[in-house]
């Protein structure tokens, strides 16, 4: 990545003293690394852990709500930022998983840990959907803009389909699909416990669960993108032809990245559905599908940390703008996207890193 400073690149040569997994978490395909970064990382986690002690219930629940979305953003960073495949249809997998969670939990209830089965089935459905669609696309050698418009078209058709399921004949078991009004009445995530099941309504326990999942997911993805697999993804993004001529079946790698990324969109979908006990076609439509693109593009799609930070910041801005009306929020989001794409195509955070990198270099040059 062009924004890396020279000394960072030297570090891309593996250091024999470090154990393998630690080396993989650190670099070279991720921007933040080295002792300073990990100190800041630990402090951030610490702050996030004590946050509920200082914040009111609404803020904690709201932060948990933000966390729900980040998985989808990280998945898109993997597909688009690392593997270079434009997928504009992540909300389809979000919705598919959300509806699956609804159907499972409405029919079978929340006891015996069945909501967790609902989560797994939801994520599984989105992986399966992504595997089928991805197989057709990548093995059909679809790339570039066509990949974007076919995934977007699929999402729009799926949203249209769900929007016309208002009639009572559209039900799976007891679960009414609900058309434009969406599906409601599913239970929240419920952890089976000896002294009685714990239902995780929006609150402190859910916050901690999501925080833990987020940290695991972020670190896991860091290992993935810095592994041999991640090397190949970046090689495919930079020059797919050359990657193939080095003996890689690029279709397979693109498909795997697509399935993992879409599974994460599915995870966001089930978590969102469980959080709000609600999912509707408007979570998938054209405006909704644009949001993950904006989070990832604004933060910096080619880096997981930039995506993570960017997503949380943009979500915060978006929510504060909706006070004036969601239309205004969307207009500002659109403006933000246009400005970033035109002037800072790598995203705001890599742009800043590059800027300060140059600044530091100049200072070193003078001394």
């Amino acid at each position, binding site marked *: *990545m*062009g924004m*890396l400073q*020279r000394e960072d*690149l*030297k570090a*891309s*040569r*593996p250091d024999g003293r470090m154990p393998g997994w630690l080396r993989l978490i650190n670099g*070279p395909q991720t921007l933040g690394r080295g002792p300073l970064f990990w100190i800041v990382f630990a402090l951030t986690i610490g702050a996030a852990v004590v946050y509920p002690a200082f914040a009111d219930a609404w803020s904690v629940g709201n932060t948990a709500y933000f966390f729900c979305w980040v998985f989808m953003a990280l998945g898109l960073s993997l597909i688009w930022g690392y593997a270079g495949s434009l997928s504009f249809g992540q909300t389809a997998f979000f919705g598919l998983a959300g509806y699956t969670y609804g159907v499972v939990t409405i029919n079978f209830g929340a006891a015996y840990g069945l909501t967790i089965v609902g989560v797994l089935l939801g994520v599984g459905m989105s992986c399966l959907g992504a595997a089928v669609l991805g197989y057709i696309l990548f093995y059909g050698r679809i790339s570039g803009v066509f990949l974007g418009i076919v995934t977007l078209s699929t999402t729009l058709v799926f949203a249209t389909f769900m929007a016309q399921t208002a009639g009572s004949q559209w039900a799976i078991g007891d679960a009414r699909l609900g058309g434009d009004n969406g599906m409601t009445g599913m239970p929240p995530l419920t952890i089976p416990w000896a002294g009685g099941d714990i239902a995780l309504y929006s609150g402190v326990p859910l916050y901690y669960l999501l925080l833990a999942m987020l940290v695991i997911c972020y670190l896991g993805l860091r290992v993935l993108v810095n592994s*041999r697999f991640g*090397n*190949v993804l*970046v*090689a495919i993004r*930079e*020059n797919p*032809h*050359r*990657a*193939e*001529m*080095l*003996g*890689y*079946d*690029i279709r397979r790698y693109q498909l795997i990245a697509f399935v993992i990324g879409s599974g994460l969109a599915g995870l966001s979908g089930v978590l969102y559905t469980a959080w709000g006990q609600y999912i509707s076609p408007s979570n998938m439509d054209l405006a909704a599908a644009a949001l993950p693109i904006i989070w990832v593009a604004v933060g910096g799609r080619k880096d997981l940390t930039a995506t993570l930070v960017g997503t949380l910041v943009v979500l915060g801005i978006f929510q504060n703008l909706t006070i004036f009306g969601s239309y205004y929020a969307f207009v500002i989001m659109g403006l933000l996207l246009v400005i970033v794409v035109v002037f800072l195509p790598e995203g705001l955070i890599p742009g800043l890193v590059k800027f300060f990198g140059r600044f530091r270099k100049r200072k070193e040059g003078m001394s």
Partner: protein
Amino acid sequence: MTILRTEKLYKHFDGVKVAQDVNFSMEHGEIRCLIGPNGAGKSTFFKLVLGEHQPSSGEIYFSDQKITKLRSFERVKQGIAVKFQVPGIFSELSVWQNMQIAVQNHLHGDSMTSAIDKALAFVRLTDKAGELAGELSHGEQQWLEIGMAVSTEPRLLLLDEPTAGMTPEETARTGEMIQELNRKGMSILAVEHDMEFVRQIAHKVTVLNFGEIFAEGTINEIEANEEVARIYLGTADDDE
């Protein structure tokens, strides 16, 4: 035993014949140069061997195994490596990462590290391991690509104009590299325009013209061949 052989290879492209009845063969351990005027079908032949084009008819054998139906990456895994004319390096990654992507398919851990070190030393880029590949000079980029291609120790190395755009010193150094690889047993097939360079490395030369094998022989035989001289006149090397 042949390392590479084609049998009655034909390729039609939108009605234009770009390969016609090509019966090519080269031996294990050979350095072969492929020459011919522009549009003679040299790069098409490379693309057929690499599986980027499917032949209209005919067969391709690598080490006497039929590879005609294999996909590109499968052929590469069998032991064919290629260095393209335009450097196909990953310019936003470091030299080391470029090498790692080339090698990691075959080797792991310490043996991977030592293979990379060896290949970098061979192409004299050890000092540049931490630099971005895109910031190397043109000659260094060409060498990096040769390093990537040979790091996996392929049995057959395809080189498309390996010296294009190089200074005379770089060209000579590249020739030495090729000969050194060949001494270790690698077979090499190179498309080349620079006849002096061809004289330096080639065991045998194949001349392509209009998609057909026009002549074949040692460099002396080819240079003495008046017919060959004639096809070069007129169509010409004037843009070289």
